[in-house]
């Protein structure tokens, strides 16, 4: 299976899960940002360029799933993926707890940035009083699912890369 097909499969599966079980799994109305997690991990495992492409499409799929204007998530997710990719080398040798904190932070940042962009484009429900609480809870909840998703995303975006590059990008597989 080539990389494009793997990415397509993961995106469809992610969209289905995000709009079904992860819509129901909420704490105080706040839930898991599965597609944002896929974006973050694609930057982590796939490097900045592949991560940016994958997360752009992930953002578009998320825009369709949550019925937000097409492009809002696609505008933010590549930025997050590239930022995570650039920071990845610093975290690669850190303990698992530090990397988990990094993922939670990245998710929370993604939620806040998306809300800010949504607000700029006139989406009033994007910026609510409970936004900081939403970002924190979504970050923590999403991080809980990061380990299995990380393996899947690693399998998805690392294919076709030379071994030494894969070792550099794919921290968890080293």
């Amino acid at each position, binding site marked *: 299976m080539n990389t494009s097909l793997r990415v397509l499969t993961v995106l*469809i599966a992610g*969209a*289905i*899960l*995000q*709009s*079904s*079980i*992860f*819509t*129901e*799994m*909420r*704490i105080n*109305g*706040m*839930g898991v*940002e599965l597609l944002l997690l896929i974006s973050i991990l694609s930057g982590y495992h796939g*490097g*900045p*360029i592949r991560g*940016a*492409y994958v997360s*752009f499409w992930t*953002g*578009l*799929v*998320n*825009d*369709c*799933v*949550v*019925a*937000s*204007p*097409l*492009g*809002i998530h*696609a*505008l933010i997710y*590549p*930025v997050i993926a*590239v930022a995570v*990719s650039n920071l990845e080398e610093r975290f690669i040798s850190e303990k698992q707890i530090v990397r988990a904190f990094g993922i939670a932070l990245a998710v929370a940042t993604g*939620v806040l940035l*998306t*809300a800010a962009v*949504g607000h700029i*484009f006139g*989406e*009033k*429900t*994007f910026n*609510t009083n409970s936004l900081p609480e*939403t970002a924190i809870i*979504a970050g923590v909840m999403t991080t809980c699912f990061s380990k299995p998703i990380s393996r899947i995303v690693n399998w998805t975006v690392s294919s076709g*890369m*030379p071994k*030494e*590059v894969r070792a550099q990008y794919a921290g968890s597989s080293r």
Partner: protein
Amino acid sequence: MPNRSSDRPRVVLLVLMAAALTLLTAQFRDFLPVDDFQQGVRDVISPFRKVVDRATDPFQTVWNGIFNYEEVSDENERLQMEIARMRGEGLRDEADRELLERLLGEVDIDYLELQTVVARIVGVPGGNYNSHVVEIDKGTDDGLEEGAGVITKAGLVGYLDEVDRSTSLVRLATHPDFRVGVRLINSQDEGLARGNGSVGLLILDAGINVDAEVSIGEVVVTSGGRSIFPQDIPVGRVIDPDKEADYARSIEIDLSASLENLSFLNVILESRENQSK
């Protein structure tokens, strides 16, 4: 090894951001293929989503039992109190209903006879941003159209924001972008009410004179005209007429339909043209 010069990711990122902004512009300019693309994606995943929903239903029940126990418990308590209140105040409710019907009858209201489709609420859209939006189990296959009004027997609920083949999203009246033309039954003054993100409240702050006589408890209905809603659908009652306003009034309306506890909705099928005939 792939080229890892520091410039290339930046160029790729800029191109992708430009693409996203182009898509956003197309969306806000009502460029139809963009909407169709979104609807197509949702239609494609919809059957798989239903299968996953059914398959994971026991897990979702356990999750709700653990993490939403308090909410379920509170709702149970609320429902028990509601039953007790309904039993104890049945006569007063009946009198209230008669009063409402009499008031609505005076202006020849027959909103209950509108042609509607009954839809069940299946949940809220995914993600963390869509408050004041609910998803229903009917779509274009059932004859629904974007912009159709949504009501219950208690009154106004919202309108259809997105309509897919088998599901639709309802923008509730409390959504900050919701607007509806309304009329005060006693004074017959008309104005524009809006949602403000608060639970169960609409704000009427446009079109009503500062010196207009508005009383607490006054019934508010839709005004019709160029609105997507037929006229005379009950909206709610005034709870704060803001009589001491100096320049612009901000009248608070308590919605007659309880939007937090909805299970079934009625989507109005009749188009505006048909209603005016």
